[in-house]
């Protein structure tokens, strides 16, 4: 499997008055063709910042200080805005959490969908409009000919997210980046959008990077998962293997603290403490102050992401201690 997107040792620093925030610190992952990767973590873990760095839309005070973002072998990091604009759309598309703030409120949605093909694929106005109607039909917007002339405020939240998906698909990108695309939606609408996104990507062979804090959503949409903590990648692997048998105590903590609709437990097990400061992160493993398995070596060595059998990887020195905890939880009455 060839990687469409390869992120290598990516580092993002943000300058603030209180110091330099190491928001993303040496993150590496691959996304294969047609594959969906879930990037999960709590707020402040660096997952959204990673995504924005890949897309080249970091906030002004943040910059990439090291690493590569290879899309089909081309490094995007050194490219300027004009060169990136050639890539965003036909190769790389993005779906945001809040479609209302990502859509142009004074432009008819049909023309917003048609804009990409006009600019990037050289379509005529009429042909681009036809393409927009066809895309609206594909994403399940009823009466696409009529709705073409509507404005974003005339759509419901779920329909707006469908418009966003149509825009993302409009130039047949190789990979779509999604930042919490269904967090603002109701559960029945979330189900519709997730199914739609998964089906369209499978049909077109499009890859997905799916940023979310919701583990069941990742299990539903993605084949692989990468877990971030304190700006670093702490575990990655096949979704079900990672979620059912975590090899990093942070992943284990996430799974144990979330109520599971299929598996009711007497009490939830929260992760003690709070996330680390990324201005002066703790020495050694960044998770050690909150980790129940921490040893002396965890306080000294910064553990690298090391491969495990089965294509998995963990950044825990004592990952074997996680084994069996979830089974014990399940066995408990």
């Amino acid at each position, binding site marked *: 499997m060839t990687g469409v997107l390869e992120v290598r040792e990516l580092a993002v620093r943000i300058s603030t008055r209180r110091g330099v925030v190491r928001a993303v610190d040496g993150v590496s992952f691959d996304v294969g063709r047609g594959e969906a990767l879930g990037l999960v973590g709590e707020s402040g873990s660096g997952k959204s910042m990673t995504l924005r760095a890949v897309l080249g839309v970091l906030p002004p005070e943040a910059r990439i200080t090291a690493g590569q973002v290879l899309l089909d072998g081309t490094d995007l990091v050194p490219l300027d805005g004009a060169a990136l604009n050639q890539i965003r759309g036909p190769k790389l598309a993005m779906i945001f959490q809040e479609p209302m703030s990502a859509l142009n409120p004074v432009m008819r949605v049909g023309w917003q969908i048609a804009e990409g093909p006009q600019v990037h694929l050289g379509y005529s106005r009429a042909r681009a409009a036809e393409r927009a109607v066809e895309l609206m039909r594909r994403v399940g917007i009823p009466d696409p000919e009529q709705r073409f002339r509507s404005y974003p405020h005339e759509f419901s939240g779920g329909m707006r997210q469908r418009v966003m998906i149509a825009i993302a698909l409009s130039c047949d990108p190789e990979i779509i980046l999604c930042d919490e695309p269904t967090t603002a939606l109701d559960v029945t609408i979330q*189900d*519709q959008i997730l199914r739609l996104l998964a089906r369209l990507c499978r049909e077109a062979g499009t890859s997905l990077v799916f940023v979310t804090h919701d583990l069941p959503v990742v299990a539903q949409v993605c*084949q692989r998962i990468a877990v971030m903590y304190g700006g670093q990648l702490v575990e990655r692997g096949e979704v079900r293997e990672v979620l059912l048998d975590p090899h990093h105590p942070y992943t284990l903590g996430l799974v144990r603290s*979330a109520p599971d609709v*299929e598996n*009711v437990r007497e009490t939830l097990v*929260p992760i003690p403490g709070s996330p680390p400061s990324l201005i002066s992160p703790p020495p050694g493993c960044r998770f050690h102050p909150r980790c129940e398995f921490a040893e002396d070596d965890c306080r000294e060595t910064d553990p690298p992401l090391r491969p495990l059998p089965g294509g998995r990887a963990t950044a825990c020195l004592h990952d074997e201690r996680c084994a069996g905890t979830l089974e014990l939880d399940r066995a408990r009455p």
Partner: protein
Amino acid sequence: MTASLPAAAPPGPAPGEPILAARGLAVSFPAGSQLAARLRGGEPRVLRAVDGVDLEIERGESLALVGESGSGKSTLALALAGLNRPHAGEITFAGRAMPRRRSRADQRRIQLVFQDPYSSLNPRLTVGGMLRELLRVHRLVPREQVAQVTAELLAKVGLDEEALTAYPRQFSGGQRQRVAIARALALQPDLLIADEPVSALDVSVQATILNLLAGLQRELHLTLVLISHNLAVVRHLCDRVAVMYLGRIVEVAPTEQLFSDPRHPYTRGLLAAIPKLTAAAAPDGPPAVAGDPPSPLRIPAGCRFRTRCPIAQPRCESEDPALAAPPGPAAAPGPDGPARHLAACHFAFTADAMAAGPPPDGAAGADGRHP
């Protein structure tokens, strides 16, 4: 564990009687310009947010209100707490009908915790100042005990005494929610309504707040109404679930019964739509519930779910189904009192119609796990 913070034990109905009951409760809001409507000579447009709700909440239970946004669950909660004016129906609290304007003493006994504690706490009051003010205004404890009671409140929600001198902005999201809970508990409520209390929090912090709520409910014999769109949270925390759709309760049942044997097609869809940790990847097939919910400005005639319902019949267009128990012997009072499983669907308790519906993959998965 506390001498000076007694568990609420006001005069009221005997155990088993509802602490709070709503009959035919309706709340509506004028929509759009009333002047324009009058000039046109038509009826003013009305948004029926809560449209005929019957609900009984028993003392000491935890009841969940679930439903999509716009289903009226928050409006219903505000009406129950006396914070907005219903235009029809009545509310009985502790055996007494509540007037439109409640006395301060009655208001005190139902407290709310909101989703975003940052916008519901006064940024210019320290936590100690906030709690002292409440205790003073409501004259709940003698002056010389105020300091002791505030310290006990903080201990109850798991905060240090240092928090007394801190302002809301100095806390993390989870701690702020603890402050909001302490503030609600300061008034020794009988009923605590929590409106999406953990939706704005990270997963690991959610767990601490959910555990806290569960512990407090047991310890203080509180009655809890939890409003949430997260059905996993609901299943974890609540004894009973009421499902709302477009201003009505469409199904209400004990939690395990609702999850293992949902009777209303909307509930079945809702359960099937929950993403599951162990589900098969890349779901194929149709979505659990198709379409968007209709606007509460234009509620469909007949059954309000029929526009999205997989088993709708011609009858559903004309007859509005009432929230009812199964007919026949199943309705006979069981050990826990009267029939506890109600659904507002013509076909809720007929086996054939349910079999014709889509396979409830979520519900089927839950079936196997529960004895």
